[in-house]
């Protein structure tokens, strides 16, 4: 798990009177107010391109919880931090969404949201008290994670994740989060993390032998948008702090990757290798991701981002929500 910054955006699906998510939320609220009934099923409008795009902009291509790489054909699930089954009024709130792998979402988390023993989940009437709810999972946005709660021991044989805080509340959350998401006990995850760390060590060895390309590569892999980037950032901080990329550099790499994906999509379509709705959906998601980065950049300015992506694409993404 790593710290995430949630962009300040409002997305058409969740905001507009005609937006599917907005309408569903309104229907649910009305049903509650009229007859006290809570919804039993939810349309998956969180998969609309604007919502997914905004999550890409925020996450890169790694799972919010386990940091595993989201392969291209597992685009990641839009995950409700507070499960919609109970917190139904948060089903269509961007603040409640993360992008996670299907394992974390569907097998581990499901409709579970652990709380301190003896406390009850908040009800709709108590919705304003969310900030004080005694949850037991770390919130990647609200809790400072890397350097504050969790630490990946890159030098450990199986690169264990350990609790790294004195704060009693955060420590309890960190402990539960490690257990809950099997950060140290899911074999596939541990294997992937070991692979990323040993791969980076190999790159450091190449740098040591005078290979400058390896320098660039290890820096890219240590980006916070890259899978297990935090483990590598910790490694670089310990061994070669001068190699740590700054935030603007990280954002640039991520934006470049999104732009390259768009170009690849165009190329595949031109050559007739991809057709149909999937292409449009993927293109739309990528454009929305760029739109959100541009709208509320975590570092630097809109003008800089426009200069990165060029005038044509700037026009496209600016026009998305006008």
């Amino acid at each position, binding site marked *: 798990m790593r710290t995430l910054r949630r962009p300040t955006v409002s997305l058409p699906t969740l905001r507009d009177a005609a937006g599917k998510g907005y309408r569903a939320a309104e229907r649910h609220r009305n049903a509650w107010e009229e007859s006290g009934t809570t919804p*039993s*099923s*939810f*349309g*998956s409008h969180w998969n609309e391109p604007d919502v997914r795009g905004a999550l890409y902009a925020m996450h890169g291509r790694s799972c919010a919880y386990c940091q595993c790489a989201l*392969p291209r*054909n*597992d685009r990641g699930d839009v995950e409700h931090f507070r499960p*919609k089954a109970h917190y139904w009024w948060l089903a269509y709130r961007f603040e409640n969404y993360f992008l996670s*792998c*299907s*394992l974390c979402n*569907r*097998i581990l988390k499901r409709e579970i949201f652990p709380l301190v023993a003896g406390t009850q989940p908040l009800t709709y009437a108590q919705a304003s008290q969310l900030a004080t709810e005694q949850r037991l999972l770390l919130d990647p946005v609200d809790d400072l994670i890397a350097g504050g709660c969790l630490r990946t021991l890159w*030098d*450990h*044989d*199986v690169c*264990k994740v350990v609790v790294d805080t004195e704060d009693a509340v955060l420590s309890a959350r960190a402990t539960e989060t*490690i257990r809950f998401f*099997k950060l*140290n*006990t*899911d*074999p*596939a995850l*541990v*294997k992937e993390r*070991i692979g990323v760390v*040993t791969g980076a*060590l*190999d790159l*450091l*060895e190449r*740098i*040591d032998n005078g290979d400058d390309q390896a320098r660039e590569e290890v820096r890219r892999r240590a980006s916070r948008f890259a899978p297990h980037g935090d483990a590598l950032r910790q490694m670089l901080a*310990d*061994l*070669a702090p001068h*190699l740590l990329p700054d935030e603007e550099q990280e954002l640039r790499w991520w934006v470049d990757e999104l732009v390259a994906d768009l170009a690849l999509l165009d190329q595949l379509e031109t050559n007739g290798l991809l057709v149909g*709705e*999937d292409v449009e*959906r993927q293109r739309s998601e990528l454009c929305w991701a760029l739109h959100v980065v541009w709208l509320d950049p975590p570092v630097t300015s809109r003008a800089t981002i426009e200069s990165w992506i060029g005038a044509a694409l700037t026009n496209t993404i600016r026009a998305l929500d006008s």
Partner: protein
Amino acid sequence: MLARNERSALIVWDPTSKRAHGQIGQIRDLVSELAGEGVQVETMMSSVALPQQTLIPAIREADEVWVAWSEEGPLTSSLQLGVAWALGKPVRLVSRFAEAPFMRMLLARMFEETSTAEHGDLRVFQIDDESRIELGSASTAPTGTFVVGSRSYEDHLSGIRPSWRFIDFDVENTTPEAVQRDLVTAFDSLRQAERLVWILHHAPATDDAVIDCMRAFVAGCFLAVSNTAAQVLHVVRWSTTIGLPELESLTSVIDGFDDLDTVLPRDEHAGDALVVESIRLEDFKSIERFQLDFDGESSLTGDWTCLAGINGAGKSAILQALAIGLMGPTLGLELGSERMRSMIRRGDGASGRARIEIGVRHAGRPVTLSVRLSERVGIEAHAGDGGMFRVWDDIKNELFVSYGATRNLSSYRDTRYSGLDPLVRRQMTMFDPLTQIASVEVLLDGGRPAALGTVVRVLEAVLADNELALVPRVDEGQLVFDQDGARLRTWELPDGFRSAITWLADLCVTWHELHPELDEPVDPATLRGIVLLDELDLHLHPSLQRALVPRLREVLPGIQWIVTTHSPLVLSSFDRHELVLLDRDVEGGVRELDRQILSFSTDQVYEWLMGTAPHSAAMEKKLEKVAADGDATEVALLMYQSEDLDEDKARQKLAHKRDLVKKFKNRGVS
């Protein structure tokens, strides 16, 4: 024994009607009470499906006859009524209130006056004497064969037996006068009949069924007034699958009809196989609401639907609902009303009734089959369209088979369900996990060479180049498998092959049971039908898991397959339009697939589609120890091993990593 001068009342009832069992005691009490002192009350079972030799003398002996009416078995009751009425006995019908509406309709159509009396929750109907019609008397010696049955069979029968004469009723007749005119005409003919073929239609409780009951009534009258022993009522159960042992016993009863199976038309709509197009469920088992159209356009050959999803998503329930809906209420009841009740969803917001609606294409027309499961009656037809009863009739002649998750074959015989209708037996493994498949006897004892020949053709295609070198063939009338010189019977096959081979063989044997005229093995591509298969991957050898679906697409392209599976290897054999991913979190219960998974690796399928971790729990246990501060060396070594790294190389790699860590920690990286 009756004492001299003592009157007798005979209650006749249908033992195949499950409800009659429950009320016969009550009816007996009522009859005893109404008949008064000194009347001996007897009961007698009879059914259209049973020989009638005992019924007629018993009724002849009785002074009054009470027909215990059941809406479930109106043909039997009509036949009993016909016999009693033709013999001039005072006849009354008695039934529960809830059972009576169809009887009321029938009586109103046939007789001008009936009187009704209520006794508790029973209702008694009596045909008034003035309402009786005179039967004509035979003017000539009996001759010829008459057929009582729907005109729709006349074309076919007249081609084969031009001398046969047809007797039927005008379905438009709704007034008692017109119906009685028809009845008199019918009796005039029947007086001259030497023998009678009655084409028995399964009669569900609809208005159309009134005509069926009138035919049964006439058949009963014919029985009663036949005055020579040579005259025999031939009951041909039209809608029962031809070629079963049942037919053989029937044929032996019917002298002179040894070529009966050529008399019966095979299939009114040959070539137009029944196809399932949609299903809608409410409160069925754990499913609150579910809807699915089987209309996905696939890029692959064949008609396949594969239901996927985590355990508990309702895959098996959907197959069971399909089986019940396609069998219909009468046969569904053979599964037991308790079983039906147990399938009603309980809990929050449950309506207390389950609904199954299945859209099918039958003889080129769309028909909605609709049944309801309820506490009161278990299962009943409910609010579908009129054509559904015809579908439930005709499906008995179709290849429709279900294979539940525990289908299998061993060398023992399971006879618990041998009394059920063949169509029900063919779906039984879907409902009773300990059942053997329907054709078990053929697979154990051998069967028709033509059927086994077809089995071999299918198995040859499916088993081509199999790893165990199994070669199917027929040896002395039995299905056997050669394997490196050894000869295996079906139940001796390796586990990974036995299950699939068993149900495939059953499928082919069933086809031949339905088509006894086939003397030679057939091209499997000519098979048409519906197969419901739970857990296609069950017990399946991994090599078969990859190959089975693609091979079945080729060898049995005429089957509509509706299957479930857990196997990623099987799942990635499907086009996304064939896959139905059940997900309770999604409105409508089905997650839309926005990509093809034909190229997915098994890991990707596991995680993306099934939501299951693609690794063993053993490794997880070891990791838990390390997480709790155990020594990491052993686990690290396991982690480093892969397709590319054997144990020695993994050890070297771990050592190298430790060296690098130590080196860089000492002096950093430039």
